């Protein structure tokens, strides 16, 4: 049935028991993003920290900065809430640059119109959202938290520049 291809069990699990939910202190940046189509909203906080040393996993901007925490308050449908939960699992503890790469992969998957072949080594539980890309009205739901995270992280990086 089509419905199950959209609402994979992984998505429903994250919706019913979201990971890392709630707003926590301290934080480096907080943003509030809304989906004007449906009124769904997410308030999301990002906390960054400098890694001890280069960990050899990539380079460039943000390579030495790690996502210490992502906390959020999400009001919305199962897709948008589950997406926030999966995002927090994926990026917490990772270098910012890796988190951004995952975000780009996820965006590409959402824009694939059902043709994407997601790499679960990169996307983890987020591969469950592949079916969402066939529903144009729902893609924004899946992307809401990711857009908020990118925005908050960019703001936090601005704050985080070494003096």
């Amino acid at each position, binding site marked *: *049935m*089509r*419905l199950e291809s*959209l*609402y994979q069990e992984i998505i*429903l699990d994250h919706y*019913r028991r979201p990971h890392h939910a709630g707003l926590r202190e301290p934080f480096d940046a907080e943003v509030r993003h809304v989906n004007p*189509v*449906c*009124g*769904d*909203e997410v308030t999301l906080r990002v906390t960054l920290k400098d890694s001890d040393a280069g960990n050899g996993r990539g380079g460039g901007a943000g390579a030495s900065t790690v996502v210490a925490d992502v906390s959020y308050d999400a*009001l*919305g*449908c*199962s*897709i948008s809430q589950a997406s926030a939960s999966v995002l927090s699992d994926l990026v917490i503890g990772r270098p910012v640059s890796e988190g951004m790469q995952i975000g780009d992969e996820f965006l590409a998957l959402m824009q694939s119109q059902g043709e994407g072949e997601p790499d679960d080594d990169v996307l983890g539980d987020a591969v469950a959202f592949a079916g969402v890309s066939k*529903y144009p009205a*729902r893609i924004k*739901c899946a992307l809401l938290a990711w857009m908020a995270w990118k925005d908050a992280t960019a703001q936090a990086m601005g704050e985080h520049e070494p003096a």
Partner: protein
Amino acid sequence: MTLDVARIRKDFPILERQMRGGQPLVYLDSANTSQKPRQVLDALADFYERHNANIHRATHQLGEEATAAYEGARASVAGFIGAAGPAEVVFTKNISEAINLVAYAMGNASAAGQSGRFTLGPGDEIVISEMEHHSNIVPWQLLCQRTGAALRWFGVTPEGRLDTSGIDGLITERTKLVALAHQSNVLGTINPIRELADRAHAAGALLLVDAAQSVPHMPVDVAALGADFLGFTGHKMCGPTGIGVLWGRRELLEEMPPFLGGGEMIETVWMERSTFAPPPHKFEAGTMPIAEAAALAAAIGYLGEVGLPALREYEHGLITHALEALRGIGGLRILGPAEPVDRGAAISFTVEGVHPHDMSQVLDEHGIAVRAGHHCAWPLHRAMGVQASTRASFYLYNTHEEVDALAEGIREAQRFFAVGGG
């Protein structure tokens, strides 16, 4: 007078469509846009196939025919809503443009420093309500920002009725305009426009009625309502998109400055200045949606043949049934009046544990088309204490079986998301 829904359904080709999985279409989104009968589709095609030309300026037979079709449509609209004459009917692209037309004309009058009832400044007030569609909120916010006037509003009661308890402090000698929905697009609530018109007029204010949700569903008479302006849109009443109506009392349209400038709305143009055509043409700049006007006339003819009193009675039966069916579902909250009194055929609801987007997705899986979100009435949803809702809206082609399908679909969504369980 009864309505033969089986016969009516045959007039709407789209209702024969099979949706995904071979399911029949259950279209419960008519408050968003209605479906179109064959008669309207034929009128659109007939205009382009046989009469297409520009209006008012083509001196040939086709131009005459096109002009007759367009001006004939204006006369149809005038008759349909009880206007004093066709000159009181201005065509626009939709009701949003109709409301903006009045708002910008008032802004223009204010900027020109004219004195009179269209001029706004600090100390003046516009009164709306919390149950308005964004198109009857935002134009007034913008107008107030431009002129320094203040925006005030009626609240809504927990039951979803207009809260008129503070009316004495709200409609005062400072009020220049009161702008209200005849019927809420979310709650279905029908507002007591006549009483409010009398209050507005007693205070020296004008009354504008957003009739987008009422004109398609019930007999509306502008004189009986006591309105000064009234707007509606063609696509919610079996007509095409791209055409709406602003009706205004003749003397007001004569006094009110134009909104959009351009061809066809002028009397004489010099390089320094222009004078303007009399209404309604003063407000119709550029080439108008001519074929759409002809098709709107066909829609009015169609609704006239069905008979609006019969249509209203039939819809009353549908909404009574729907309210009963939905009240029987655990965890479901109906927004708006729970009884079918002063209530149109739209019903918005929330279901505990199932977000409206997810609800509409499950319903769509069963071929049932509803709307999910805030329905362009964000402040109303905030006032009702909800983020979003699901709305089912009915029209003359819906059946009682479709009401049952909706109720079953809602239960299916509850099972799917394991509300109360997992």
